């Protein structure tokens, strides 16, 4: 790994590789490609309010894979305040990037694995450095509801079984590299079967102690039989995600929690979206 004594120049070089690469022979990817997701409506397992069934999602762009260790290492090189030996505890706990070889170096085998042991603050900072953001929960859930052939595959028995099979796998197995699971309807990889993922509105995942009526978040707190309006067992995998996210504080890290980024579309692009079937 290069020294970061000259941050701006070194980082530019790190980012670009060589001028020949930038000219198009081989561009080193600094971030996953983004896929445009058309606007639409869907039934969320986390409805915005009691009695409201559908959620409308505006068109946006989403990384087609989770962010990798290599991509995150480039960010850390350019933003050394996010090195594991420099980040304040208020933004990341002791486990932050603890799987790396050093504060700036990853193990060779980790290059294309999704970055984990990252806090919500660190994930947000990476996305912001790209001019992007984390996806909201509803955006993530909307895209993750798609099977290979349908925008909403949640009623497809086989698809459900495949997903549940992953959730029942042991977390001790090494993480797979990104982009190896089949793309879904939108062309997005790895929404199931690789890692848990941070969302932008983490703080909205659970409202635990407001005094007002809030039946749904409250039942969610006692996640288990009868959680939410759980007549739909096929949503079990999604509910596990919500339970996981709602148990996380923003500076927590975990060996199975990664992320990907999203971006807003300009108003011009938003107008040309096609409504979903």
């Amino acid at each position, binding site marked *: 790994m290069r020294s970061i004594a000259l*941050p*701006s120049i070194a*980082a*530019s070089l790190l*980012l*670009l590789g060589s*001028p020949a690469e*930038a*000219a198009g022979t081989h561009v080193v990817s600094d971030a996953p490609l983004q896929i445009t997701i058309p606007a639409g409506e869907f039934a969320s397992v986390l409805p*915005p*309010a009691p009695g*409201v069934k559908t959620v409308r999602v505006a068109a946006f762009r989403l990384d087609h894979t989770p962010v990798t260790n290599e991509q995150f290492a480039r960010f850390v090189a*350019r*933003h050394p*305040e*996010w090195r594991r030996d420099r980040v*304040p*505890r*208020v*933004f990341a706990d002791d486990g932050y990037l603890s799987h790396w070889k050093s504060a700036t170096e990853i193990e060779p085998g980790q290059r294309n694995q999704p970055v984990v042991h990252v806090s*919500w*603050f660190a994930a*947000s*900072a990476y996305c912001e*450095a790209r001019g992007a*953001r984390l996806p909201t929960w509803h955006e993530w859930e909307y895209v993750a509801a798609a099977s290979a052939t349908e925008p909403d595959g949640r009623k497809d028995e086989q698809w459900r079984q495949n997903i549940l099979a992953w959730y029942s796998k042991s977390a001790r197995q090494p993480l797979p590299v990104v982009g190896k699971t089949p793309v879904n309807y939108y062309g997005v990889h790895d929404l199931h079967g690789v890692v848990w993922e941070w969302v*932008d*509105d*983490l*703080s*909205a*995942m*659970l*409202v*635990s*102690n*407001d*005094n*007002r009526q*809030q039946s749904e*978040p409250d039942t969610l707190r006692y996640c288990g039989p009868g959680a939410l309006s759980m007549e739909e067992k096929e949503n079990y995998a999604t509910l596990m995600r919500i339970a996981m996210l709602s148990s996380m*504080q*923003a*500076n927590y890290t975990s060996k199975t929690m990664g992320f990907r980024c999203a971006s807003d579309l300009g108003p011009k692009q938003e107008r040309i979206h096609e409504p979903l079937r």
Partner: protein
Amino acid sequence: MNLFVKLLLCSAVACFAEPASQAAPSDPPESIYHLQARLTNQAGQVHGLDVYRGQPVLITMFYGRCPMTCPLLIDTLKTIERHTSAEQRARLRVLMISVDPENDTPAALHRLAKQRRIDLTRWTLARADEKTVRKIAAVLGIRYRKLPNGAYNHSSVITLLDQNGVVVARSSEIGKADQAILMQLK
């Protein structure tokens, strides 16, 4: 080549972007003052989360149009103040940050302060953009969500920070002065 120059400039700009923290070098690693946050108070003045650096601060999140919990939250803060000695009270500050930047303009916050007879020499009511609100809620461990009717659900938490911005007590007790907070103020 042109593209190369553009990319180079672009990444140079990213490198010179402001760091994630404007905290003083002496701030402990747990200090929430590491968070770079741009707040605007009820008088329209811009300041950071550390507006009361050097003093103990009661910090909470609320929204002005809130019918029930937030008026109680203000009452609770006043109750805590009443339970402190004159000397403690002279040092103690209160920072209330809105989760509703759309409606809680400086003018609206100022109106609320007048209505509730808030002493603005020791209290600040502030707003921030949506992204900043999310980060402040994250460092304070406050959960909130906007409802389709424009109201918010949010956890009513009062946090006591020491002079360096480190959380020393946290309370969800509404309507009375939490002993955990009063103990820390002594």
